């Protein structure tokens, strides 16, 4: 028989904060459940019918009481709302400095790519005490990354990037679940988040990254797919240059501006005419179906690496993620 447990481990900075709110809600629930059940039972005993033709005392209502039990619950829920919303805001906004890892969900496995090129399946290695941001997408249906011991969860959608961030506080192995029903083997789409001390994590990273960093693999794809014939390092190409593009505002042909984030870059590859850059002809073909989701993420990482200052693709800062 497994050990009796009523709370998951607190293994992220968010966990104790979520638990505090949870405890408050448990106490509130217990209080009101006992208060009202107690009252009901007390009345039921005290005012038992004494004779068959007895009727209750005619009391029709009391506006002061009504106002009281409207306003008090209202104040309580507004308090809970404020507390939970501020926590949620922290959850939804990753800090400025994060270690970025990419995730692709597919029926029924998780693939993770580290910027240095490490790829892993159903396991995610992260260093302790570091803010980690996952950029996630799905190859097929909706999935959901859920790490109960971190109290974090986010849907993983096809055709879109979503984010999840956490800062692990304790080395160990933690469950990773798919929390959005995704078909036959949904309950098998599970894995482990392995939180390591930084030194240990560096050692793990050093244990062979394979074919180079994500940006390097992306650069190779960029050449293989002939993207480079139009998107040049200077401004002479038929397509806009991608150097220094990431994170900047782009003016579209309809006059609107859009931030060149991961989602925009992905969209411009699979559906180039959706939001055209001002001043360019709609001549780029779609790459939908020609590049895998992993490949798209590698291309994104490559574009990210194209800094405005003269540099080369190998100078990606990703190999040392846990810098302080």
């Amino acid at each position, binding site marked *: 028989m497994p050990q009796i447990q009523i709370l998951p481990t607190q293994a992220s900075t968010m966990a104790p904060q979520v638990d505090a709110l949870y405890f408050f809600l448990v106490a509130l629930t217990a209080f009101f459940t006992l208060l009202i059940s107690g009252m009901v039972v007390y009345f039921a005993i005290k005012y038992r019918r004494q004779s068959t033709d007895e009727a209750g005392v005619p009391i029709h209502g009391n506006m002061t009481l009504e106002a009281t039990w409207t306003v008090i619950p209202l104040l309580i829920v507004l308090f809970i709302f404020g507390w939970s919303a501020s926590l949620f805001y922290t959850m939804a906004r990753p800090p400025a400095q994060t270690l970025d890892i990419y995730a692709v969900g597919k029926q029924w496995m998780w693939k993770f790519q580290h910027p240095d090129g490490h790829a892993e399946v159903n396991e995610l290695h992260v260093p302790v005490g570091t803010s980690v941001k996952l950029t996630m997408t799905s190859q097929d249906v909706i999935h959901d990354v859920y790490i109960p011991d971190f109290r974090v969860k986010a849907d993983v959608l096809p055709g879109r990037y979503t984010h999840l961030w956490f800062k692990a506080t304790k080395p160990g192995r933690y469950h990773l*679940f798919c929390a959005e029903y995704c078909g036959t083997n949904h309950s098998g789409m599970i894995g482990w988040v392995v939180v390591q001390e930084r030194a240990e994590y560096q050692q793990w990273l050093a244990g062979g990254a394979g074919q180079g960093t994500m940006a390097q693999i992306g650069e190779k794809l960029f050449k293989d797919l002939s993207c480079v014939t139009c998107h040049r390092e200077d401004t002479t190409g038929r397509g806009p240059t991608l150097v220094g593009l990431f994170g900047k505002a782009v003016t579209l042909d309809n006059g609107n501006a859009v931030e060149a984030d991961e989602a925009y870059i992905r969209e411009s590859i699979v559906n180039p005419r959706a939001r055209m850059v001002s001043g360019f002809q709609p001549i780029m073909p779609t790459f939908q179906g020609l590049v895998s989701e992993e490949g798209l993420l590698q291309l994104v990482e490559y574009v990210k690496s194209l800094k405005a200052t003269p540099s080369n693709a190998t100078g990606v800062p990703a190999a040392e993620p846990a810098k302080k």
Partner: protein
Amino acid sequence: METATPHANYLTDGYTLKSWLLTRDHKRIGLLYLISVSAFFVLGAVFAGLIRLELMTPAGDLVESDTYNRLFTMHGVTMVFFFLIPAIPAVLGNFLVPLMIGARDLAFPRINLLSWYVYTIGGIFTLWALVSGGVDTGWTFYTPYSSAFSNSSVALVVVGIFINGFSSILTGLNFIVTIHKMRAPGMTWFRLPLFIWAHYATALIMVLGTPVIAITLVMVAAERLLGLGIFDPKLGGDPVLFQHLFWFYSHPAVYIMILPAMGVMSELVAAFSRKRIFGYEVVAFSSLAIAVVGFLVWGHHMFVSSQSVYAAMAFSLLSFLVAIPSAIKVFNWSATLYKGSISLEAPMIYVFGFIGLFLIGGLTGLFLAALAVDVHVTDTYFVVAHFHYIMVGGTIMMYLGGLHYWWPKIFGTLYHDGMARVSAVVIFIGFNLTFFPQFIVGYLGMPRRYHAYPPEFQLWNILSSAGAVVLAIGYAMPTFYLVYSLVKGKPAPPNPWGAKGLEWETSSPPPTHNFDEIPVVTEPAYHYEK
């Protein structure tokens, strides 16, 4: 007014099958619904039993994953669309709305019969899907899984639910018109029993909300069968759009289930404390408030679906606000007991059960409205426990409570009250044993819809499965003593509880046209004082 009068009651007014299948009598149609929803309840319960049996062990060893996925989908589909939504309105509402307002029937008796046939046809499609291999999308039909990936009979079930939706719309329409136009002389709006207010609010949701789910399911079918790109991103669609449309109906649908239960609650509390409901007007308007605000909270099902932070906050706030009218109702029911004349016959035991389950179900709703906690517990067993407490605990307690309360009126016979009280207690215990452990295992992180699960969750699953056995016994008991009462029960007087309300002024069972003379109402509802 003792019975043994020569004129026929509605049960003796024709014995042929045709006299039942072509009846336009709202009371007979109510009984047709009683039989159909009971059949679907048994079916849904069998699925639930198999689910609980599979979850006794961490490994997925009883059935295949595909089978398990079909089980929980069919459990949800039959219970939500074919039992919980129609149960109280279509059975008790059909029977009682005309009786309570002093009318001879609903406004559109033929449409009422049509609604039962529509329901039945929808049900047949769903059963057809079941025998043709079942459906594995979950009752929520999330895209693009349902529209592009699932290899099961999605289209059949979707058509079944689409058709069934019209029975809801027709019933809602009938109630609205009936309540507006057919009240007896003197039956003003604020003399209406609160059961009628609750059904009026329910009918509004049925009429305004159901078309949205119908259209949404048509779109799923169109994408699946014709390849129209609506939800699948590969076809240029948006998968999250489906969730908005689905929950725009399916959250209010929870209120379709619970508002009628609240209406029954008000009737029972008043009758068994012989007292006017404390704050009658407040309780009446809180039903309407729930119906209106209930349409504005759908986004709380999607806090982790990538909607914007600010949208999530707005939906969170509105979800907290919709809790207030429910809280107000609970306070008013409790206050009604104060200085009442309380008798503890079986329906009142169901009332206590309802209060217990509704309190836990309602208060755990606050956990889910609280954004940061919801992120952790959404899509886990915590949510499963919560919505079972509210939708199932709340609704079934009052469906059964109401069935016991009006049983003598419906069938003119008395059941064994002691047995009925025991069943109420057994159901209450079984329910808590089944679903309370799910809160704990949910907070521990066990995701819902998992065929196999890590071993540390086993203890709570065993408790839950054990509870399901107790619950099954509790649900089975009324079947026996209620059916037995039909054969051997003592005849019921017109008003066995000494309750107020027009339905108790006519004979038990009522004559075909309800009242020999249309009553004239001269006093407010629940006018017990002498």
